[in-house]
């Protein structure tokens, strides 16, 4: 895990992981909702594993339930990694 996690690093990892799960790169904006991207709860559980591997940040089930947009996810991960 890097000593200091930047917003750009989080965005890169999250976007790469989301593309693996189905959405195309140009669909990924901060305002895009996971519902509109057809990213479901199991996809978010997978994303949580990737995030934990890269940044040591553990997202629990109730964290994941609260995030609705890509921006929500980025902000939460950045805040936890700080």
């Amino acid at each position: 895990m890097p000593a200091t996690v930047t917003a750009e690093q989080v965005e890169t990892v999250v976007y790469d992981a989301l593309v693996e799960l189905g959405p195309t790169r140009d669909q990924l904006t901060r305002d895009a909702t996971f519902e509109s991207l057809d990213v479901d709860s199991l996809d978010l559980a997978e994303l949580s594993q990737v995030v934990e591997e890269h940044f040591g940040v553990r997202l629990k089930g109730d964290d994941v339930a609260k995030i609705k947009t890509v921006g929500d996810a980025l902000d939460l991960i950045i805040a936890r990694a700080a």
Partner: protein
Amino acid sequence: MTTTNGHEGCALVTGASRGIGAAVAAALAEDGWPVGIGYRSDEAGARRVAEAITAAGGTAAPVAGDVADPEAAPRIFDELEERFGPVLVLVNNAGVRADGLAVQLEDDEWQRVLETNLSAAFRLTRRAVGTMVRKRFGRVVNIASVVGPKANAGQANYAASKAGLIGFTRTVAVEVARRGVTVNAVAPGFIETDMTEDLPAGVLDAVPARRAGRPEDVAACVRFLASPQAAYVTGTTLTVDGGLSA
């Protein structure tokens, strides 16, 4: 490691030093899976099972750990993953009994049975399924019992644990089905093992097949559920009881 069945990973069978677990481990090894022989205290038994598999041309290694200990699951998985790669087949077989009428059961007898038979299966499954989902393949088989769906006086704790295991199986199956991961249960009836050697005489009169089952009867069902042919079978409980529940 790449298995002879084309997967890169292995199988873990808990409680595999004897009885049903040992037979399941041997059957999965025959299908090309390197197998972790999970055991709590019977190291000699686990070694014998692993050696028999190796002698038959398979791959196996004993893996120590009391699954009732919440810290055991990560250790067991780390050890197996380092040796054989990800666990792609998990058979939750480890189980204990502490019988008595509910009115006389002690808290620790309740807790011990629930921890080993149900909570341990949850923790191991949680760990295994995370990887299986990302690999887009996995098989979880939980060894339940005909006791649970059906009453058996003197086994309220055991019945609760096994009924819980069946409910757990169905729900996890639904959660992960779209990732190529199946989760099923096998429910044995009277099977000739150390665990059933103290059954009262005459109990087999209630079994339509008029005999006790063998560990291999159960293993054959687990083997099927772990196979590619069972890819569309999930969330179900396969009863292996000689017709007892029919």
